[in-house]
């Protein structure tokens, strides 16, 4: 099984680090992974996106133009990637960042109010972990215990005290995601 995933949003929303944690989780599960970012000025306020591929076999191209899953966190990202999701694929969007929801009929559409929830939790730094939780609920690509292992690997040790908070956010995301169609 191969998952070709794009995660896209504003720079600073934690798009690249969410992708990295997902990729690391894949490694923990013994999968082949690749993580390919948009880079440059986009990282500083513009739209940032990352392509993460998890697969049971060696990954050929880290760059693809059709995705199984698109996680879109702002309107420009949805406009860029809605048409690039394969038929039968999945779009996950944040209800705060997207005001014109996706219209595709041939894909599964999930909404997660992750930004609202992060504000409720009084911690906007866990926004991306809430989204990750939602993604894992919609598509159980990797098991939660491997995600926690992946988090441990991708966070410098001095931040390991933040692991419980991140786990809580992931669990919260799993609860609040809703399929729309």
């Amino acid at each position, binding site marked *: 099984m191969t998952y070709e995933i794009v995660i896209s949003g504003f720079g600073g929303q934690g798009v690249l680090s969410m992708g*990295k944690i997902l*990729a*690391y989780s894949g*490694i*923990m599960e*013994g999968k*082949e*992974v*690749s*993580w*390919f*970012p948009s*880079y*440059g000025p986009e990282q500083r306020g513009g739209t940032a996106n990352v392509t993460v591929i998890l697969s049971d076999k060696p*990954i*050929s*191209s*880290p*760059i*693809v*133009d*059709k995705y199984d899953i698109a996680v879109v966190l702002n309107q420009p990202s949805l406009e860029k990637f809605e048409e690039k999701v394969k038929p039968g694929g999945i779009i996950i969007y944040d209800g705060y960042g997207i005001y014109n929801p996706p219209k595709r009929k041939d894909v599964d559409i999930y909404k997660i109010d992750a930004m609202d929830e992060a504000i409720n939790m009084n911690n906007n730094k866990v926004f991306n972990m809430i989204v990750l939780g939602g993604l894992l609920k919609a598509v159980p690509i990797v098991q939660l215990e491997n995600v926690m292992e992946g988090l441990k*690997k*991708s966070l410098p040790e001095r931040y390991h005290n933040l692991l419980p908070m991140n786990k809580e956010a992931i669990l919260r995301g799993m609860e609040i995601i809703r399929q729309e169609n």
Partner: protein
Amino acid sequence: MSEEIVLMKGNEAIAHAAIRYGVDGYFGYPITPQSEIIETLMEAAPWETTGMVVLQAESELAAINMVYGGAASGKAVMTTSSSPGISLKQEGISYLAGTELPALIVNVQRGGPGLGTIQPSQSDYFQTVKGGGHGDYRLITLAPNSVQEMADFVGLGFKLAFKYRNPAMILTDGAIGQMMEKVKLPEFRRRRTEQEIREQCPWAALGKTPDRKPNIHTSLELDPMIMEKNNERFQAKYREIEKNEVRYEEIQCEDAEYLFVAFGSAARICLKSMEMAREEGIKVGLLRPITLWPFPSEIIREYAEKVKGMLVVELNAGQMVEDVRLAVNGKVKVEHYGRLGGIVPTPDAILEAFKEKIIE
């Protein structure tokens, strides 16, 4: 799962591999998309562990000349940059070649010309394998196509550079530099002691001992008869490298009726195009040059007898395709497909171009 396997960017892998290989010195200047290399080194602070010197120079020009000095003293030294910075380094690279000094240079290419873009490109192929700096010289050129090869080619680059006393380059691009993959980092090697360097590199300028003549590193020779001899010596060495060091990878070439020829990131994308073509029943293989100089002309010549056509895919306007055509020498159709200025072609687009240019 081995604990040695980590997820990191190609740029980071170069930095960690350099520390582990026992590199003595790194001299660089920041430029996108490769600044993670010097950032990773500074964060790792190897001067506290292996004793490796890491210095942010005042310019690319200074950095390559620091490499030149370090190499003259027999040390394993390297620099990294991206296209515009590599243009600045050409003077120093020519001096390294002219004094026959080993060093490793990494070019994480971006689109040009001029300041160009910071997105991936392979448009420095000509600059790397056909000269770049002034004079009749060659640069051993390795083209990694994965984060793993970024790590592995640091050691390989130094091995070849020291074996032949010649600068070597890792020619990669922003895509491989910025992407993360699983990588198994090389084992730690101890840096050589001064005594070991004096023994292994008797030419090193480390201070003249009474038992030998002065070691003088210069590319200057005003007597053209002697200068010609020097050049002939270089050329003989280059022929030797061409004989011994050609490296390439053949993927599903056994039954191939057609070939993709591509290196680095373009080869990775072609892999997917090849899978897609084979799903449609088209027998395509991928020939991936790993050394761009010495170029795998011989194997390409052999495939020209077997296949019906070759598509050379590059992130440029058609550079390596010239070397493929020279090798094929008109035997079969050779076409080029590329995107320019930092655009990375998609697997679908490559397959489409292949059908249009080669099959029809």
